[in-house]
């Protein structure tokens, strides 16, 4: 006899809740473990992470669920869920996990993997473009320059702002990983 409920209506109701191994990519867990330098396969689903999470009470984001998805290899489900981007990286879960997993780094690894599928919010890409252009994610502006002068500071700080000759080196590093290229392409393709 096949395992199941005798009541056909109930059987139908629960049918699609069963876990389908066809949805699973076992490589996903390996990728996540390598990038995160952590051990999500040790998770016993206690929920301490979600209980510590400032994002959990105000959204459907559940860090425990993402760790479970890593273990089950549910790559698509994890990487396409917009909640992936609601982690503030506060590391409370990482400090408190009784299995010594770093759930925060699991999320960061999944974000890296999502980026490879072009899944990334626009604000991240704009920061990349700004750093490529100026060396700063939050660059100087005229109001600030005036304020700096009043303080007795130079208008431009002692960074790439004052020494733009350092910018080619920074761009070379970013080009090594094709960051600017990818950011430009995704942004020009429209909303993501």
């Amino acid at each position, binding site marked *: 006899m096949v395992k199941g409920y005798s009541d056909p209506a109930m059987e139908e109701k629960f049918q699609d809740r069963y876990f389908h191994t066809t949805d699973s990519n076992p490589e996903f867990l390996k990728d996540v473990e390598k990038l995160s330098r952590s051990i999500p396969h040790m998770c016993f689903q206690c929920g301490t992470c979600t209980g510590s999470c*400032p*994002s959990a009470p*105000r*959204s459907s984001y559940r860090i425990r669920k993402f760790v479970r998805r890593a273990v089950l290899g549910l790559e698509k489900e994890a990487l396409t869920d917009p909640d992936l*981007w*609601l*982690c*503030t*990286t*506060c*590391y*409370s879960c*990482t*400090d408190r996990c009784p299995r010594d997993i*770093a759930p*925060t780094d699991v999320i*960061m*690894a999944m*974000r*890296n993997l999502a*980026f490879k599928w072009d899944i*990334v*919010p626009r*604000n*991240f890409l*704009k*920061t*990349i473009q700004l*750093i490529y252009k100026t*060396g*700063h*994610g*939050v*660059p*100087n*502006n005229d109001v*600030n320059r005036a*304020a*700096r002068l*009043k*303080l*007795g*500071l130079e208008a431009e*700080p*002692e*960074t*790439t*702002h*004052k*020494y733009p*000759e*350092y910018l*080619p*080196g*920074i761009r*070379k*590093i*970013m080009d*090594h*990983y094709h960051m600017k290229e990818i950011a430009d392409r995704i942004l020009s393709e429209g909303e993501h």
Partner: protein
Amino acid sequence: MHQYAFFLGCIAPNRYPGCEAAAIKTSEKLGIELLPLKGASCCPAPGAFGAVDLNVWYAMAARNIVLAEQMNKDIALICNGCYKSIYEVNERLKHDDELRDGVNEVLAEIDMEYKGSIDVYHLAEIYADKKVCGPDKIRESVVRPLDGTKVAVHYGCHLLKPIKERRFTDAENPMWMEELVAALGAEPVQYRNKMECCGAGGGVRGFDLAHSLDITNEKLTNINEAGADAITEVCPFCQLQFDRGQIEIGEKFGIEWHIPVLHYNELLGLAQGMSPQELALDLHAIDCKPFLDKIL
């Protein structure tokens, strides 16, 4: 004089230059000299950069560290986001040969090499360290005690967490910043869920502003309940979230807050006799006057 290469980051020099000016001047009075770290860039932002490609985060942070190695000076910085990038990457590269080799391959393209010859400190951590400074030395530098004021401390996440990867020992209820605040004559107040995140990190401020402000609003509620006259922190990004965030919370949720937000270096500057003009407090979104009226 203890000398450090001063890593500025982005938000302090480009949005709250008072923090930069204050850090240099207040430290001088404590026997700490902050030297310019020429050509440094964004740390780069751990949320924005680490999220898309951790490898480029390692390499870009390493470049900033190498600039200080070339000066042969340890790094001091005043932002928790920078601390996460610069401190953590430095520690990981020191202890992971494979990672270091990978980074050095990329750095070789720009004739640089990471050696692992320096250490990275948050300036607040240096202030708390009795071997270099300590609360007593800070107390001695005060000419205008902040008597009669109540100040809530926000440590910020990336200063202390993950605790296993930090020099600190307690991220659940630390008290060392409260000691630094008490050294200025102010009364540090305890409030509910003190260690909660400001809400800005991980790219969430840019991704979903309302969500991030809802976290901030919870913190402000708890801080207000404790009767604080001001919030102090050691991270310009937390500062931006609490300071501009109060205005944004007003616009988005119709909830009004007027709690001045001061970086510890600004607070220290006031206690050492610097004027609000010398700290560019007029650039703050929330008027600091109610707090200043209590001490000036």
